[in-house]
């Protein structure tokens, strides 16, 4: 079993309390940082560690921090715990089981970036996670880790837990800021980027929950130690969320660069495909990333490897699809999500996701036409890159990639008016149009 960093001791009893967290080295990193590091030195340390954002884009964390505008405006931190990407469930676990690690990460980042008010934006549906984070914040205030003159350093910080209320779009950083400012979660046009003009107009750093939860270990053990895990360009470990038609779904922390095959088939991790069926497709980084075929099983799970295979590492949500599944129906299900979650601000995304689901629906239910497959691709082309935020682009990923890999299955639907896959247990609607 490789060394665990962010999920180390995650199942230790009482880890979610201040006392329990301290017994496992909690807040030692904060003490060390405040005593031994100037803020800029901490930024350098994180740069050197090679840590990259764990939310989806994989941007180097230390570099992001160094882009903060140098002016006299109040700086803010938004910790993005609005975990909603289908197939992703790591941040919820980190908040529920080790909330103090996250809070310590938030304080470390705030110190490094000279932030005076930090927000932890927790997805609305995750009520227990929100309570855990809130309690950790209160305990940290009481212990003097948050507040005025933290541990005698002269550093002041306020931390506020803010609950979302059901909107996937608020995981997009500019929509998250709009939501925090008390508005509808509509994305902002970029530039200006949040590092220049962000929350309340101040320079703002926005980092994912897992990213910040990794900081205490990096500060405690050093940049070189962290950089010794993973690959040359993708350092460290990552919590991979394995789900779908696999024997042992769950969160597995592995060094970046671990082959997909190990995660899915190794007995310690996924243990193989459910009912020992053949593998059909893998979504490597949450439903917004293009799916890959079984021929890509030996691809290393790192930013470069997955990109070279034609997809993205995204949020680390690895969804496994077996031969038991109709790909058109699965893609319809994913597209339903984007239609429902499109905020409606940009026409290509709002109207495009609607029409994509309409067309997929008729294909799946035996009413498709020959030209529908190319029509889907045409609509995707009219959405991609034509909206304020990446939600529309994300909606096109499952469709474009699945047509590339399984065009024959789409054509079969048009020709035979039914699924190639025999099993129909997950279908609500009869497979043949006009049946019943």
């Amino acid at each position: 079993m490789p060394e665990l960093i962010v999920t180390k001791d995650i199942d230790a009893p009482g880890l979610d309390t201040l006392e329990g967290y301290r017994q496992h080295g909690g807040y030692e990193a904060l003490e060390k940082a405040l005593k031994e590091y100037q803020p800029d030195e901490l930024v350098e340390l994180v740069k050197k560690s090679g840590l990259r954002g764990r939310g989806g884009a994989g941007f180097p964390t230390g570099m992001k921090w160094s882009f903060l505008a140098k002016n006299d405006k109040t700086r803010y931190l938004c910790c993005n715990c609005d975990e909603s990407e289908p197939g992703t469930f790591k941040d919820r676990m980190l908040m529920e089981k080790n909330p103090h690690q996250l809070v310590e990460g938030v304080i470390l980042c705030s110190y490094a970036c000279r932030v005076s008010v930090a927000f932890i934006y927790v997805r609305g549906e995750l009520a227990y996670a929100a309570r855990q984070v809130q309690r950790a914040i209160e305990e940290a205030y009481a212990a003097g880790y948050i507040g005025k003159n933290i541990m005698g350093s002269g550093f002041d910080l306020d931390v506020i837990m803010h609950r979302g209320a059901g909107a996937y779009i608020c995981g997009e950083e500019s929509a998250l800021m709009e939501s925090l400012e008390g508005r509808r979660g509509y994305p902002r046009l970029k530039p200006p980027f949040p590092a220049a003009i962000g929350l309340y107009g101040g320079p703002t750093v926005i980092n994912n929950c897992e990213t910040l939860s990794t900081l205490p270990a990096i500060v405690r053990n050093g940049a070189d130690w962290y950089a010794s895990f993973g690959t040359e360009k993708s350092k460290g470990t990552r919590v991979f969320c394995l789900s779908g038609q696999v024997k042992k779904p769950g969160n597995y922390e592995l060094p970046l660069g671990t082959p997909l095959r190990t995660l899915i088939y190794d007995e310690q991790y996924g243990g193989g495909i459910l009912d020992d069926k053949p593998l059909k497709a893998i979504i490597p980084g949450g439903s917004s990333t293009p799916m890959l075929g079984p021929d890509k099983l030996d691809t290393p799970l790192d930013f470069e490897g997955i990109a070279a295979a034609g997809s993205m590492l995204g949020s680390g949500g690895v969804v496994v699809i077996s031969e038991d599944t109709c790909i058109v129906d699965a893609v319809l299900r994913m597209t339903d999500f984007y239609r429902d979650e499109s905020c409606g601000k940009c026409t290509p995304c709002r109207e495009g996701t609607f029409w994509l689901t309409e067309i997929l629906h008729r294909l799946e239910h035996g009413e498709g036409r020959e030209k529908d497959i190319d029509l889907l691709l045409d609509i995707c082309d009219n959405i991609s890159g034509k909206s304020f935020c990446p939600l529309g682009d994300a909606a096109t990923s499952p469709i474009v990639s699945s047509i590339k890999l399984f065009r024959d299955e789409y054509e079969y639907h048009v020709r035979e008016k039914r699924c190639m896959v025999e099993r129909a247990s997950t279908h609500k609607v009869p497979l043949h149009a006009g049946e019943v």
Partner: protein
Amino acid sequence: MISEQAKQRMRDLASRYPVARSAVMPALYIAQQEEGYLTQEGLQAVAEAIGMTVNDVESVATFYTMYYQQPQGRKQIKVCNSISCYLRGCDKLVEQLEQRLGIKPGETTPDGNYTLRTVECLASCGTAPVLQVNDEFVENVTPDMLDALIDKWDREL
């Protein structure tokens, strides 16, 4: 009826944030907690506490799916139907709930006991299929388990 205590909590929130308006979402949660859904009086109370117009508050409230515009059942059942739960048979659970409760997703039983919803990915894909009852998770749900759960909820109501 929004209690004076609830209004005070809203005002406290407004001063807790750097800008009062940021407190609109938590204040809406308080209003909803008081009455089970957002009434005109609830929106009014939020508007007064935060210093926004009622229309403005309503425009925020209607963007987010967790603020309810209608009375809700005493047990609110949310079934995840996104990709990972779909791959693990969530549609069967929805059918089973429809049959046992006699309502479709989005509806509330006439006795006000249950509201059924299908929702987007609940960040519990490793323990799919999942549902939430009044915001608390039930994971790795099987048809047998669901039958027993509904019996249990019935007894609790």
